[in-house]
């Protein structure tokens, strides 16, 4: 994505959901996107594929050297589902309630591969369902979604997304709507896809624990803008941006270990008429005068390539007082 803007024209004004976001995913890499609810995570990843109804999308979104926004609808459709798979936030409502799960999966295959016979598609669906860990796939294939548990539906969604062996999987909070044990299972499935099939993954979440387990690099979004990006190491141990710091301090793991859960106070700015300065300024405890009037640009910080932050604080700023919280989070996730 290169300088992506997503806007909605509403009766209340223009909603600026994504404001000039850029990020890249290399083949085989897992990119985590974190941010609070409403920060534009979903739109930043879906709008370019034409999946956000009513959105005005500008900028560039290059997939395999071709700009999705310049493509015909037909070309984009060919990429969707075959080379790019998507898993959505809500597994309960993402499957069609009136078609059998197996039918929905084989449709995904046969839409792109018309030469495949019904029989072959059926066999492939069984294979996919067992790949994502659905027990007795030959029997469950004829079930309707309401006969599946939440975790199974999400796995079926993942199976659907990887049906044609995509190069990229976009997983939008695949674990938020399910309980903790299933969360762990789904992460396991994703890890397996990443390691065994070498699929590049964009993992959207507001759970830094998930990021720690799965991602190679991280983008931190806030109010439709990238606040900081870098490797998982950079973000956890050498983060620069006060918002990243706040996210780490609000980890529940920090609470259990040290009794110091510190939620970020305040609300993100309205996406209509966002303030001119740093979007995080109203909630930032390091706020300076210039933060309110001037917009900080995303610039390299720290010592590592690819580590950027949009903040006026000195470039060699080192996090110190929230180290312990980070350790606690890491300890919890690897355990």
């Amino acid at each position, binding site marked *: 994505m290169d300088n992506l803007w997503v806007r909605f024209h509403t009766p209340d004004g223009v909603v600026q959901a994504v404001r000039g976001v850029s990020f890249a995913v290399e083949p085989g890499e897992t990119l985590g996107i974190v941010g609070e609810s409403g920060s534009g995570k979903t739109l930043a990843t879906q709008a370019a594929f034409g999946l956000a109804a009513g959105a005005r999308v500008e900028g560039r979104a290059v997939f395999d050297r071709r700009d999705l926004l310049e493509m015909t609808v037909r070309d984009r*459709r060919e*990429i*969707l589902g075959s080379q790019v798979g998507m898993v*959505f936030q809500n597994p309960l409502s*993402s*499957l*069609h309630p*009136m*078609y059998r799960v197996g039918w929905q999966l084989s*449709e995904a295959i046969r839409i792109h591969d018309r030469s495949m016979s019904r029989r072959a598609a059926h066999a492939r669906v069984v294979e996919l369902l067992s790949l994502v860990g659905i027990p007795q796939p030959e029997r469950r294939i004829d079930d309707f979604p309401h006969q599946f548990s939440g975790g199974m539906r999400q796995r079926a969604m993942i199976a659907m997304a990887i049906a044609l062996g995509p190069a990229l999987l976009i997983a939008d909070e695949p674990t938020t709507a399910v309980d903790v044990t299933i969360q762990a299972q789904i992460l396991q499935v994703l890890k397996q896809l990443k390691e065994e099939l070498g699929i590049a993954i964009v993992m959207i979440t507001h759970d830094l624990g998930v990021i720690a387990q799965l991602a190679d690099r991280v983008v931190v979004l806030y109010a439709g803008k990238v606040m900081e990006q870098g490797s998982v190491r950079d973000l956890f141990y050498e983060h620069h941006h006060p918002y990243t710091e706040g996210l780490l301090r609000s980890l529940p793991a920090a609470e259990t270990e040290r009794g110091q859960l510190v939620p970020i106070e305040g609300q993100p700015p309205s996406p209509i008429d966002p303030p001119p300065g740093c979007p995080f300024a109203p909630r930032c405890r390091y706020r300076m005068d210039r933060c309110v009037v001037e917009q900080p640009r995303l610039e390299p910080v720290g010592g590592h390539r690819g580590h950027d932050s949009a903040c006026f604080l000195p470039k060699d700023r080192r996090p110190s007082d929230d180290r312990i919280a980070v350790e606690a989070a890491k300890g919890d996730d690897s355990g």
Partner: protein
Amino acid sequence: MIRFLARRIALGVLVMWCVTLVVFLIFYVGPGAGDVARALAGREAPPSTVALIARNLLLDRPWYVQYGHFLSQLLHGNLGYDYYNSESVNTIIAQAFPVTFSLIIGAAPLWLAFGILSGVYSAVRPRSLGDRTFTGVALLFYSTPTFVLGVLLILVLYYELTVHGVSIFPAPGYVPFTQSPLQWARALILPWLALALVLAAAYTRLTRSSMLDVLGEDYVRTARAKGVPERRVIFRHALRAALNPIVTQAGIDIGVLFGGAVITEQVFDLPGLGWVAVHAIQEQDLPVIIGVVVVASAGVVAANLIVDILYAVLDPRVRLH
């Protein structure tokens, strides 16, 4: 599924039983002892006919015996006898039913096609010129009384065209299908059109709102994310899920029409159930009125049953409950 159906059928039987009870109360108990036979006989019936009726219907016996007799006659498929016209009510209804049936069988596909297609278009392109046009036209026909539209159609498409030597559409009237399928269809085109245009409006609005709801659903986005072509997304995924309220409405409309499309039948001079009912009321021909009421109720009950079955077929979630 079996239990679901059994319950629905039992409910239908119960409703029909209530109908017979109400009809009995109104026509057999209402007039008071002694006047029932008189009323059923029709105007200017000779005393011998009245006495015959009283004997046939066991009117000298207690009311529950009368009701038992009435019910058993119905169960044997005997709707009664029209003494006024000296004809069995069964015959009258058997002649009228195919007319009403022909009217519905042709009009229903038309209004469903008009309504659903325009509704889908409006939902896919909300606030577009097409949407506004369909909504406007729908509103226009929705608020046009059936007889006005019917008379207009006759005037323009039959009268004016025929006067100018283009007789595509025949004069109002009915030709049985068995006599000539082509003439049957020709005679029915205008009534089909009149009925369909008036009814389609409701379906346009219903389909539009139902589709707008469904198009915002996550599973529609899933279909797009799979790379499903837009046309297939709309018809195979969205419309499939938007169909329920449309099926319900169709069931109600068709059920009601089986009681006779009264106005359409009047305007186009089609001797269907509605036409028969109107004439029977004008002549105070009670046996025929009773027959039509019973048959019309059966039509509504049957239509409802079919809707319930369609629900279960359309929506797998229904089958479990």
